């Protein structure tokens, strides 16, 4: 069976598998970060709605974006995982979330 890309060498560790897969599919890093963001954002909103009946969307947006920034920074330590543009986009996402959060709240609620 022919594959669309070369299969990664799975005998040298999960990090090598990730880097080799990202060599064939550079968007994998962005998808991992998007996965982290959506799990925290949608999971937090759903859990809070189930618990108290309403959800604080802007707060979960800022929590999710910070939770995405941490793995993005860790992935940036070594080359090959994510690109500089994506790291800056995550920082930009943090700033957009902060704009939403702080304009949404009264000073007494912050």
């Amino acid at each position, binding site marked *: 069976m022919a594959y669309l890309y070369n299969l990664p060498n799975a005998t040298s560790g999960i990090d090598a598998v990730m880097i080799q897969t990202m060599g064939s599919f550079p968007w994998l890093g962005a998808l991992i970060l998007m996965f982290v963001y959506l799990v925290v954002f949608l999971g937090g909103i759903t859990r809070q709605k189930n618990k108290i009946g309403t959800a604080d969307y802007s707060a979960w947006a800022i929590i999710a974006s910070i939770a995405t920034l941490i793995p993005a920074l860790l992935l940036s330590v070594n080359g090959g995982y994510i690109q500089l543009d994506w790291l800056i986009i995550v920082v930009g996402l*943090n700033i957009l979330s902060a704009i939403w959060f702080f304009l949404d709240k009264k000073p007494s609620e912050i």
Partner: protein
Amino acid sequence: MGSQTSLTISIVMIALFGMAIMGFAINFASDNNANMSISDSSEVSSVYSSQSGNLSSFKDESEDTYTSILDTTVEPGSDVIPSSAPMSLTRGSLLSTAKNMVTIPIVYIFGGWGSPFAIFFTTLLSIISLLFILYIYKTWKGNP
């Protein structure tokens, strides 16, 4: 958002949050000898340094405002003070701060100030400017 004070505090908090996040990311990369750092981008570096300048200006302006409030006098029989200086804290540097904060998202997510979506942020900044003007005027002179 409900008053000049809360709008001012919101924008200062946005600026401080942005500075904290950018500072954390830059220092994290520096401490760990990271392969890449957000400061490798000239756009981010210039926003970071100009934001520091704007926040310093905000500090100076807040001291000036404090002084002007202490110096304020109200003439007998007058409804308002002769100058709007005590309400001047939200001018200049804070609006530049708001513009600086949206520079990174607009350049890296929405394709720069010339992109079709940029009109969204331009209008948002215009509304914030207008709110500042209205808040200052209404606080000083009352409802027109």
